[in-house]
């Protein structure tokens, strides 16, 4: 037996994404955001996207490009306080925004990746985050039904990949990438480094290649990936 090769170009991998797709984007702030894949989404002019991401990055970087280019219909997010463009687009009704508690967004995505239909939680009960949600009673306790989330596509930023799609991440660039890399019909990875099969120890793999469809090696790390001077 041998493991198949999933390396491809970014152009080709992104070309398969249809307009109207539901797209998960890894990252929390700068670390782990697939900036180059987002640029390719913009370059190919994919429209009417529903984007799922922890945050809206900052003005002029990452997910903000999709807002400015008018390619995003809806944003499912935990916090967009650092991006005035995103807040303005929300307030002016140019994008629809759904706000989630951060850990519940992570768990809903993970549940999607785990093939579960929903999780039951008391997080957000008696707050306005519970409004409109299904409530059930279990063992005498009222709980919120938080449905699993899956996407058409997940765009993932890895530090290192092998051709089968086994991935590792660095430090806090891990964040939402592993759960998202399990929760989409098509998982596209940009990687800072590509190593041969066997180049990642089987114990060190953080996302098993089984979940991954396309590996796109990055040819350069643009300044968006860098340290932000504030």
């Amino acid at each position, binding site marked *: 037996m041998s*493991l198949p090769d999933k390396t491809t170009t970014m152009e080709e991998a992104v070309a398969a994404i249809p307009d109207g797709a539901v797209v998960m984007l890894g990252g929390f702030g700068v670390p782990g955001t697939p900036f180059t894949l987002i640029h390719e989404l913009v370059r190919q002019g994919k429209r009417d996207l529903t984007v799922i991401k922890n945050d809206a990055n900052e003005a002029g970087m990452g997910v903000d490009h999709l807002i400015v280019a008018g390619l995003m219909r809806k944003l499912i997010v935990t916090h967009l306080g650092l991006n005035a463009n995103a807040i303005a687009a929300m307030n002016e009704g140019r994008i629809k925004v759904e706000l989630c508690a951060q850990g519940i967004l992570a768990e809903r995505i993970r549940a999607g990746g785990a*093939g*579960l239909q929903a999780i039951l939680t008391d997080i957000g009960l008696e707050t306005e985050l519970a409004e409109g949600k299904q409530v059930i009673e279990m063992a005498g306790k009222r709980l919120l039904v938080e449905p699993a989330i899956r996407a058409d596509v997940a765009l993932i930023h890895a530090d290192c990949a092998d051709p*089968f799609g086994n991935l590792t991440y660095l430090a806090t660039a891990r964040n939402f990438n592993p759960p998202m890399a399990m929760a989409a019909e098509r998982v596209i990875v940009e990687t800072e480094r590509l190593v041969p099969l066997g180049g990642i120890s*089987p*114990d060190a*793999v953080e996302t098993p290649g089984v979940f991954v469809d396309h590996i796109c090696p990055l040819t350069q790390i643009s300044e968006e990936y860098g340290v932000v001077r504030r």
Partner: protein
Amino acid sequence: MSDGNFSENVQDPRARMVARAAREIAPGMVVNLGIGLPTKVIDHLPEGFPVCLHTENGMAGIGPTLPYEAADRNLIDAGGAYVSPLPGTSYFDSAVSFALVRSGRLDLTMLGAFEVAESGDLANWKIPGKFSPGAGGAIELAQKARRVVVLTTHTDRKGNPKLLRQCTLPLTARGHVARIFTDMAVVDVTPRGFALVELASGTTAKEVQEATGATLHLPAGDIPTF
């Protein structure tokens, strides 16, 4: 493992069934082979064949099984066999292992069976009063693999059919079996019921029908053999 090609000219009927089942695996698939007959499919894959074998105790990319002397005490498959890694293998915990199964990343599972119904129902984990050790991972494999096929002898030790109109034993999963490989035939589960697809060489369609506990629909033209 055979030498660059799928096995040919296997004589023993069970081995022939296993060799035929191996040809069900397409390049690039992620496959889980159940304990028993299905595990033997591995021996009939061409060397270097691009396939990712999954085992539910937490490994994708199973390599060849190892003899006692060469075994790693920390590396087994779900049946307890000592296996080896390939370049590109990964290990993960039991939650991730079944995440893969339930979320649709398992292209194919090959399972054993006590009974299969013409509706695709499968019973393979419990004989009430005699054998009820728990289903392990079988429920999820049978319910969630993108394609579920069964490897089984066509009849039990007493000669009773295992392919039935309805299962009599507790079900593992309802309506998910797509194809059955036996020592006598390859049988598909279709909306009309069982359909004969191939015959073991030397076996007739009539013999297969007589060993089957439900109507066997025959194809229009010649029936291929394996």
